[in-house]
């Protein structure tokens, strides 16, 4: 009996620690993590019910760049169902209609991040899962990107999955997903030639993707076979309005656009098969095979009419008609062997195969001032075939020490063709290339005492023909981690680095990335928890550039980008007399760049070989900025089933060079959490 009492006491302590952990980790001020009502719930017939619903008012105020605030945070004003959860469980596991019902909601009402998840299941008969999400996305593309391409859209995602006989050796699965994006946008374009002026025009985005899937699982002795057949459909009916202004962004030319219409509907479908085979010939030997094939296809038409004057001042009207089809069949396969010859050894090998051939053709017609102009038949293809093999070994000779390593080899074949004005694609001569990569990793993990875990690994790799100047070529990576964890406190520290060098005779790309971080948490007693951490992420890349300036080609210039990102976070959670929960937290992120105080003052001018470009590009080598957000929250138990909550969060965004995007904002809320 005494043991049982101690066990329950221990459980309450653990529960308190878990609750505190959730609270400290809360990244946004609302919803309140503490819930109303008893966690044990109430019995109702053969069921047990737990629930908590938080309804409140959210408010905000912004000073500075509201577009940037909406892009980063986007909380508004109004009444919300800030959070809610409902759990109904059959107590004996044999409910009449269901054994488990779970419902969780967040931000329902008008928050920019709304979601709801629902599960209904009856043991051994069925299980249904629903995940619904809605995001109000605002992105003005901001000053650093030219201020164009604004988006104010709503994206809704929903996934439905139904499983019949989920605990049986034969299962049937049916699923449906929907992904829609609708809303307003501002786009840019240029007319009447590729040197024409740029205009901003309106877009009414209407995109929908749907996926239907059906599949089944069969288990026989130690073999399991899963087959899924699916169909994806996509449609884009985005409509485009006329530009906001008849004159373009370039005020020195004579380009105007007085009339404009564009329609470009797209329809696509991707049927696919997925087959997965799992076999355990023995308890220590497992074979997994996976094969997928899909046929992607998009049909498109494009109809555009534009009227105005070109950059030389001549009157122009132009109509563009285009139709065609893009295709992409993809086949992939993976075969994995896992062998455990003894409890100390784990050996695995995976062979991967990927083959994709993207091709398509389109007929492009252009009428200029009513006369037939350019007519093109276009064709392109891009074929990729990758074969990879990775062998892993892990050996644990003693409980406190283990070593592991792997070797990876992959070969990628790329075939590419791009043609304009061709009669027959078969007449084309494709370009082919083969890339090979070898890499190896070795590491050790230690547990000298039970609470302390240390791991270290290193990787080196070579790619004989990287596809891009910035791709991985000669690279090496280091990872190290130490963690000390006890019931009341934990500390951890880790280090990562990734260095890559990719060079040719004229140009060099090298990147150096390093990160240090440390984190600690302390729970001095039940109901009090502190958590704090610091991270430092360094990145510097150096890349050769070539471009045109004032109609002259500039060779041998270099892009040198430096980022030194420091982040700290801290939080404290206090539960007083089982009635009041208080939380205070703080996060600060600061990119110090290379330490300079003026934009056009490169700290290392030797990396800009062409001094004439210093004034042009030095300012983009760094982006010093700071972003901080303290928050405070209070939650008071008014009754067993009722809580009163309030919170405040502050945001401060400051750029060092330009002040155009800076803002400060306050968000807050007041709410009641109720459990019936």
């Amino acid at each position, binding site marked *: 009996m005494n043991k049982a009492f101690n066990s*329950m006491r*221990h459980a309450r302590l653990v529960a308190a620690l*878990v609750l505190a952990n*959730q609270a400290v980790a809360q*990244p946004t001020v609302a919803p309140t993590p503490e819930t109303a009502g008893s966690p*044990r719930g109430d019995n109702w017939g053969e069921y047990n019910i737990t629930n908590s619903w938080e309804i409140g008012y959210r408010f905000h105020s912004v000073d500075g760049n509201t577009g940037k605030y909406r892009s*980063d945070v986007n909380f508004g004003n109004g009444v919300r169902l800030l959070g809610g959860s409902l759990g109904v469980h059959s107590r004996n596991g*044999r409910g009449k209609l269901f054994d488990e019902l*779970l419902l969780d909601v967040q*931000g329902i009402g008008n928050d920019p991040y709304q*979601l709801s998840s629902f599960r209904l299941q009856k043991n051994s008969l069925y299980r249904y899962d629903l995940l619904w999400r809605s*995001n109000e996305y605002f*992105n*003005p593309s901001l000053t*650093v990107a*030219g201020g164009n391409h604004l988006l104010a859209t709503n994206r809704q995602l929903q996934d439905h999955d139904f499983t*019949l*006989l989920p605990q049986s*050796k034969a299962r*049937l699965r049916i699923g449906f997903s929907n992904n829609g994006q609708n809303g307003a946008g501002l786009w840019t374009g240029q007319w009447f030639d590729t*040197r024409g002026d*740029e205009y901003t025009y309106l877009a009414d985005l209407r995109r929908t993707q749907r996926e239907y899937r059906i599949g089944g699982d069969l288990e026989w002795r130690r073999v399991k076979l*899963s087959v899924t057949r699916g169909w994806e459909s996509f449609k884009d009916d985005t409509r485009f309005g006329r530009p906001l202004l008849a004159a373009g962004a370039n005020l020195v030319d004579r380009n105007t656009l007085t009339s404009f219409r564009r329609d470009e509907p*797209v329809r696509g479908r991707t*049927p696919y098969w997925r087959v997965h085979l*799992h076999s355990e010939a023995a308890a220590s030997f497992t074979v997994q095979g*996976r094969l997928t094939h899909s046929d992607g296809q*998009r049909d498109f038409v494009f109809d555009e009419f534009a009227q105005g004057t070109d950059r030389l001042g001549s009157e122009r009207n132009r109509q563009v008609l285009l139709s065609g089809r893009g295709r992409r069949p993809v086949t992939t396969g*993976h075969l*994995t062997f896992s062998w455990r010859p003894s*409890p100390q050894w*784990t050996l*695995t090998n995976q062979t991967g195969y990927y083959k994709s051939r993207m091709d398509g053709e389109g007929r*492009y017609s252009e009428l200029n001032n009513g006369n037939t102009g350019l007519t093109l038949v*276009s064709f392109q293809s*891009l074929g990729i075939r990758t074969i990879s093999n*990775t062998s892993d070994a892990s050996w644990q000779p003693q409980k406190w020490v283990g070593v592991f390593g*792997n070797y*990876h080899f*992959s070969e990628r074949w790329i075939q*590419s063709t*791009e043609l304009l004005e061709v009669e027959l694609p078969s007449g084309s001569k494709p*370009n082919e290339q083969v890339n090979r*990569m070898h890499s190896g990793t070795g590491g050790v*993990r230690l547990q000298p005492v039970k609470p302390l875990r240390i*791991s270290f690994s290193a990787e080196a790799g070579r*790619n004989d023909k990287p*596809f*891009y*100047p*910035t791709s991985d070529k000669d690279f090496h990576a280091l990872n190290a981690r130490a963690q000390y964890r006890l019931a009341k406190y934990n500390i951890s520290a*880790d280090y990562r680095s990734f260095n890559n060098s990719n060079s040719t005779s004229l140009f060099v790309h090298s990147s150096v990335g390093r990160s240090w*971080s440390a984190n600690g948490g302390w729970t001095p007693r039940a109901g009090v928890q502190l958590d704090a951490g610091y991270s430092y992420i360094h990145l510097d890349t150096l*890349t050769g550039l*070539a471009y*045109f300036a004032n109609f002259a080609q500039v060779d041998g210039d270099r892009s040198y980008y430096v980022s030194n990102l420091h*982040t700290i*976070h801290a939080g404290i959670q206090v539960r007083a007399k089982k009635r009041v929960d208080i939380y205070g937290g703080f996060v600060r992120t600061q990119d110090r760049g290379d330490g300079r105080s003026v934009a056009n003052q490169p700290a290392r001018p030797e990396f800009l070989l062409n001094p004439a470009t210093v004034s042009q590009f030095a300012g983009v080598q760094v982006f010093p*900025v700071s972003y901080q957000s303290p928050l405070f929250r209070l939650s008071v138990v008014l009754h067993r089933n009722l809580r009163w909550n309030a919170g405040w969060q502050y945001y401060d*965004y400051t750029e060092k060079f330009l002040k155009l995007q800076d803002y400060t904002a306050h968000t807050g809320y007041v709410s009641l959490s109720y459990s019936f």
Partner: protein
Amino acid sequence: MGPAQSALPLIFVLLIGLTTALRAQPPARSNSVNGFAGSNVCRTCHPNVALQFFRNPHNKSSVLPGVSLENAGCEGCHGPGKKHVDAKGGKESIVAFSDLPAGGILDACLRCHSKDANRANIRRSSHSQADVACTSCHSIHQPESNRSLLAKRQAEVCYGCHNDVRAQFAQTSKHRVNEGFMTCSDCHNPHGANSPSWKMGRRPLMVDTSLQNEQPCLKCHTDKRGPFLYEHAAVRVDGCESCHSPHGSMNARLLKRPIVFTVCLECHNGAGSFGRQSNGVTIQSASHNMADPRFRNCTTCHIRIHGSNADRTFLR
């Protein structure tokens, strides 16, 4: 409607019939091996666990018919309990997960959970190699949610070790993980992933794939999937990370650099044997004047940069 689609009703009926027939089979005989005490005995000393266990997904093993003793209830995971009862408790007389090495925990859980496709790579995953076992993230008896039995909110579980990722998500522009709208597992498979179909099949590790085994980004950003008549090869060959930092960035479009033209020019410099034609990635034309700020926002004109059906230079 293709022949495969027309055969769907038949497949459906066959599957229903087969599953019903299999379900009608008599339950397997209880494996009454000596040493098992039964879950009811455990309640005596562990009422806190037993009283709440009806909410736990593992409770099915206690209530469903046909589950053998070694897989049922408490002893399904903790092993035969008779010795533990006789000894009046103690970790040495039972399988205590807090005392098991990471490999032992993995072995214990995979006895039942090894067959799902998304755990096919768990033995070779980076987590297993670093001794991150199931109970490092999951709390069977004190979960934050009964849905996946995670010890805390998913992001917090991941941040617990990946401090640098927490810092990346603390930047101004990021995917909305901290806001609860997304989870890490929307893009990652913490149980280990197959070799990716991009970037030479090596990196990134532990990343899930979408419909056509592409980058997980395309699960949501469906308009970027194509196929397009003109593909931007960077997307297909080396993946979205060629240009984007998916966790967080100082650029509103999550670009790797704050200013767009540096991203473009670092590849489009015409050097070496890079690119799809093996003669260098195309340098910009002479009509571009980088001395004029107007030309430094590449995507103002190249608006279909992920792929276009109308223009090989992605202008429309």
